[in-house]
């Protein structure tokens, strides 16, 4: 089964060249020149991955991410103009899973896409050591996090994977580097902000008081750990 990728980019030439490049890699490609068009296309046909340029006319990339996230856990890679903390963090908070900076090397983007798609298929090696923490239960087969009252917590696949990695060794501190490698497939030089922002988002979904986390704890200067 070929993966379907949606490119949201207002520059027609970039769109076309990326389509050529991705088709060459064996993906099915859809193109959208605006955020609005992207949402329409996304409703019509399911996508396996969305590539969103942050600088779009009309609805910008951040809004587009947020709109997509409302009812989908699809992997999103944003294309930022700058490596500025503001753009990167805002994009991740809007729901993006990862980012690349323009001008990007196509190979690098392809590698990021592969890592995300692999993770999305959730063909997990070993499941988490614990399934239950607090009021929550991790169900890796379905890829969902369920409350004890039976309702599901909406979380993206990246967030789910992050949770699984932490749950694999409860009470043990995992460094940002370890999490970056295991969840995103980054090496030592991965951007730690990816972990920080995703942890923040997870806390707002799980913790009673995200400022005083009970389960997802930060160990200053070390990393993060899951306390059941």
């Amino acid at each position, binding site marked *: 089964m070929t993966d379907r990728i949606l490119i949201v980019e207002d*520059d027609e*030439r*970039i769109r*076309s*060249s*990326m389509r*050529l*490049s991705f088709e*060459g890699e064996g993906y099915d490609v859809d193109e959208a020149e605006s955020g609005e068009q992207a949402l329409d296309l996304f409703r019509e046909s399911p996508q396996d991955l969305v590539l969103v340029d942050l600088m779009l006319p009309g609805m910008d990339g951040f809004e587009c991410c947020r709109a997509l996230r409302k009812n989908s856990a699809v992997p999103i890679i944003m294309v930022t*103009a*700058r*490596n*500025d*903390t503001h753009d990167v963090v805002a994009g991740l908070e809007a729901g993006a899973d990862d980012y690349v900076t*323009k*001008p*990007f*090397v*196509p*190979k690098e983007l392809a590698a990021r896409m592969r890592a995300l798609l692999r993770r999305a298929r959730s063909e997990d090696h070993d499941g988490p050591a614990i399934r239950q923490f607090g009021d929550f239960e991790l169900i890796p087969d379905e890829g969902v996090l369920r409350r004890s009252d039976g309702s599901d917590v909406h979380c993206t696949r990246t967030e789910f994977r992050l949770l699984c990695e932490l749950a694999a060794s409860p009470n043990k501190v995992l460094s*940002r580097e370890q999490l970056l490698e295991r969840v995103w497939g980054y*090496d*030592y*030089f991965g*951007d*730690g*902000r990816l972990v920080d922002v995703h942890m923040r988002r997870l806390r707002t979904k799980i913790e009673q008081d995200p400022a005083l986390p009970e389960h997802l704890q930060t160990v*200053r*200067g070390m990393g993060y750990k899951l306390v059941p």
Partner: protein
Amino acid sequence: MSPDATSDRGETLVPFYRRLGHLGLRSRLIATFALGALVLSASMATIAYLTTRHFLIVERQAAVLHQAYANAALLRGALASKVPHIDAQLSSLDTGRGTASVLNVDGRWFTTSLAASRSTLPVSLRQTVHDGSVGTLVSKSITAPSLAVGVPLPAVHASYFLIYDLTDLQHTLRILLAALGAAATVTTLLGGALGLAASRRAMSPLTEVSDAAVSIAAGELGTRLPIDTRDPDLLGLTTSFNAMVDQLVARLERDARFTSDVSHELRSPLTTLAASLEVLESRRDELPDRERRAIELMAGDVQRFQRLVADLLEISRADAEADELNVDSVEAGELIRRSVIAAQRVIPGGEDLSVTVTPQAEHARLLADKRRIERIITNLLENAANHAGGASEVAVSVVDESVEVSVTDHGAGISPSERSKVFDRFYRGTAAGRRGSSGGSGLGLALVAEHVRRHGGSVFVEEGPGGVGSRFTVRLPLETSEPA
């Protein structure tokens, strides 16, 4: 006079005149105030002295004259009634302290004091009196200043002289002079002090301007002078100074934005180029040799172009300080080793590069932005690859409070005069003037300097060990305290 002395004189005289002009504003103000105070107080003192002196002498003169008339009248009476012992009569006169009487009767001289006699009387006075007039004379002799009055007594063929000793008066005047002189000196000093205070006050806005300029030059572009609308004299200076800085900042921002805008504009076509080229490259095996070679050339330059644009964006962001340092607490050994591995993925060759880390440096902790450190190492290794046939060694050690990372090559070396310039943007050495096919963006070392600066470290280049090649050394401050 020796020629030397002449030239000395010539040299000291001319500049003396100019030296006043060369004095600082502060010294000139102090000198002006002190000089003004001196002129003023000295003239006041002189006038006071002269007036007092004149008044005292005139008053004394009148008193002496009055006394002389009274004494002369008494003596005339005594002589007319032929009183014997005229000298006793003379002595009995009450003339007051410091006075002496001299009487001449028919050519005979009588005196009340040994110090006063016919000979001590000035001839001109004697003559005046002899001619029948009253005479007054002030002798200004320094040893014995005196006032002499002569009264002719023609009816009894006599003349009477009263000599008044002015030493006391002179003494008083001397004290007065000393007091006035002291007052003038104090006033002059006070004038100088006032000048100092005034100069401080006058200089304080200038000091502020100079402090502001220093901080602006140091990169604090937000520095402005506080505007004090109450002082119309300074308002002009502060407003124009601030306007100048605004202009300067606007100019800097315009330049920086231009670089940034150009780079941003280049990104889109570059992205298209790179993506399209990749499609062609993936089919290169199916292409004839000529076409394949053309695509390889294109791919090489597109890659270089991408690096250039990325570097330009990076440096323009650094200029605008728009990029935040994304620091982590990391171990120096691992960071540098991994950086070298990452760099070698981009830089061809360099398989025989050795990385040595001292045991102390291995676990030395740095607060560093890992990706920037990786850029530093990549750029240094790339520089060595492009200009010196590749780096030979990367060494990590701890020196004082810093981690020292040095990259050594066995290239042609860099001449001492060029060493400070290699970190300039787009600087291309004279020896390495050519732009090789693998030539960097020309910004690599400038970015190294920029990243090192943002980490609070330093970078320099020196001759390699044994005088061969060159060695770039980066110093990064150790993390001072344990993370809380």
